[in-house]
């Protein structure tokens, strides 16, 4: 077997082809030399650029990567200040407005008068079967900003009641409609971002140290140790990852709260994800250990573990950054898939995956298509991570540098 088995189900991140690319690039000597190497043609007096500056310079040229970065910053800020952005509390439900379509924002009222502020009308359920609502045009409810509402702690610290926007009762501002329990979809998406977005980060935070140490040890020692360690990792890689995900999630106890479940899902995603990453690191370390600096460290009498941790692994940093950026979206996809199937994060918690599952039947699909909106957030996040990951790959790979 060569390094052919890859991670599936996620469909993204480090597919086999890309691993191959990473493997070929590992033949290239990593940047280990002194940072102040003189460069020909440089003007006297100018400072040489550090590798980080060079990478940043290259990244700035990759417009899509920047776009991805900006989108991600917006999303993560959204997750941080979810309670401020959301007009309603997470468990709020309006018993009279199930499957309410997205709020229509108006500027011109029934009398033909123009308003400066967008406003909504209060609505009333007309036909529960067809899910039609009728607007009461007699009174306009302007959208107010920085309104007082449900108390919460901003960033878990500052107690406040101010929310970004809202309308007066009895009108509702369901920006993206409401679900079958009369809950605001936008609110649940905003809160759901906390779970969906953090999953990727936590999974990477777990898999990277494990994968680095495991792959580092296997690659550094080589021979029998390597053989044994890689066989173990390959067994995990050998399973279709979605099957494995499914089976492992069935192992989870059904009765635990949703926070516990969330952490268990991270454990599952990590226990599948570390293996592919370890193999990647191992391939890189196999090439790295041929370099003189490893030999020098050995000659100085340093211990193996110290050499691995202090000299070999730091040299894998650019690979690690790239792979991490591309692993996050696959973890996000894994969590959404599980939650979508009802095996991941469950009600009453919200994640983009379990929100989307509300739209997964024909009646809802046909009559309340806004229930599919959470899927757009998943796609946008994953696209953004892929943009950023590719940009980083170009920026951190010296061969790709232009000018």
């Amino acid at each position, binding site marked *: 077997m060569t390094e*052919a088995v890859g991670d599936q189900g996620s469909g993204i991140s480090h597919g086999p082809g890309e691993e*191959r690319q990473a493997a070929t690039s590992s033949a290239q000597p990593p940047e280990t030399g002194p940072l102040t190497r003189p460069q020909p043609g440089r003007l006297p007096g100018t400072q040489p650029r550090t590798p980080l500056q060079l990478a940043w310079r290259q990244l700035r040229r990759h417009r899509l990567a920047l776009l991805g970065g900006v989108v991600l910053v917006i999303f993560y800020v959204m997750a941080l200040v979810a309670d401020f952005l959301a007009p309603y509390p997470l468990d709020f439900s309006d018993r009279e407005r199930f499957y309410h379509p997205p709020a229509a924002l108006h500027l011109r009222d029934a009398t033909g008068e123009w308003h400066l502020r967008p406003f909504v009308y209060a609505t009333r359920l007309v036909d529960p079967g067809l899910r039609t609502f009728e607007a009461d045009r007699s009174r306009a409810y302007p959208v107010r900003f920085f309104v007082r509402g449900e108390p919460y702690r901003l960033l878990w610290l500052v107690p406040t009641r101010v929310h970004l926007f809202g309308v007066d009762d009895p009108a509702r501002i369901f920006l993206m409609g409401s679900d079958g329990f009369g809950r605001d979809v936008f609110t649940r998406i905003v809160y759901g971002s906390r779970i969906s977005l953090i999953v990727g980060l936590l999974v990477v935070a777990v898999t990277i140290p494990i994968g680095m140490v495991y792959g580092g040890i296997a690659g550094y020692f080589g021979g029998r140790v390597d053989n044994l360690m890689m066989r173990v990792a390959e067994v995990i890689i050998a399973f*279709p990852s979605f099957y494995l995900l499914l089976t492992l999630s069935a192992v989870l106890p059904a009765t635990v709260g949703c926070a516990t479940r969330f952490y268990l899902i991270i454990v599952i995603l990590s226990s599948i994800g570390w293996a592919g990453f370890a193999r990647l690191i191992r391939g890189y370390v196999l090439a790295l250990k041929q370099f003189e600096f490893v030999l020098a460290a050995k000659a100085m009498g340093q211990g193996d573990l110290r050499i691995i941790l202090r000299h070999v692994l730091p040299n894998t940093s650019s690979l690690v950054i790239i792979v991490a950026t591309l692993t996050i979206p696959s973890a996000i996809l894994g969590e959404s898939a599980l939650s*979508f199937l009802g095996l991941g994060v469950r009600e009453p918690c919200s994640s983009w995956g379990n929100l989307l599952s509300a739209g997964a039947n*024909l009646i809802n699909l046909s009559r309340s298509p806004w229930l599919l909106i959470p899927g757009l957030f998943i796609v946008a996040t994953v696209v953004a991570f892929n943009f950023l990951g590719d940009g980083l790959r170009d920026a951190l790979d010296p061969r790709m540098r232009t000018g």
Partner: protein
Amino acid sequence: MLQLIPMLLGITVMSFVIIQLSPGDFLAEIRLNPIVSQETVDRMRTNFGLDQPLHVQYLRWLTNIVRGDFGYSFAYQVPVLWLVRSRLFNTLLLNIIALIVAWAIGIPIGIHAATHQYSWSDNLLSLFSYVGISTPTFFSGLLLLFVAFKTGWLPIGGMTSLDYDLFPWYGKAFDVARHLVIPVMVLGVLAVAGLTRQMRANLLEVLRQDYVKTARAKGLAERVVVNKHAVRNAINPLITIFGFELGGLLSGSAILEVVIGWPGLGQLILDAVVRKDLYVVMGSLVIGGVTLVLGNLIADILLAYSDPRIRYD
């Protein structure tokens, strides 16, 4: 080749261990049923060998697998292999067609993108492939179902229409083909997106090589340079992907099958996982793992065959 044996053993051990980790078993549900007497439960335990120590259970299961017996489904009361076989055709049909479509479209698009680097069509295609690889199949499946519902052009979900049995054979084939459009599109887009990106990157790499310069320098037409010299070398690395997709023929469409109600293996395993149908889950895990391993083996052989630079010890 011999390395495969510990790997396959590892696959079975892991499948077994995961299932043992699971709290409660299939009988737990039956036990709660007041109609079923304790004696029946005990008899089922003995019949299924659930009262034996773990290693005995494992060895018994393993020897049976080697003989081609994957055990018995608790839920359906039929052998696992029989159950799998009944779904196998549907899943293979879907995945093979999607595979063919994807390669027929993906490779030419990749070549076009590489030979027209940074043109508007290249940029558009690369945007498309970014979105393609980033869209989970359960979402794109739902979107297409939504479109199908709104337009009424295509049947919504499933594999056959209600009146399928009344059709003559060509009507049946046409009916299934109509039902195939949505899932093939979903899987196809995903695969095309990946293939295009890979093909484009490979071809760009090859086009920078010296022998391409040589070919151009000796006055060959650009078409010949690309098709005869560059593409052949650029396709080689894709064989790995091909093997990978071959291995994923049984498992690649799992979530999508659940979403659109395609009666394939994906639905079967989800159902079995939810119902804790022990042997079905273990069997599916083993079959899924083994096909993936075999797919990669085939890829390695093909790769060694097509590229003389690659030799395995």
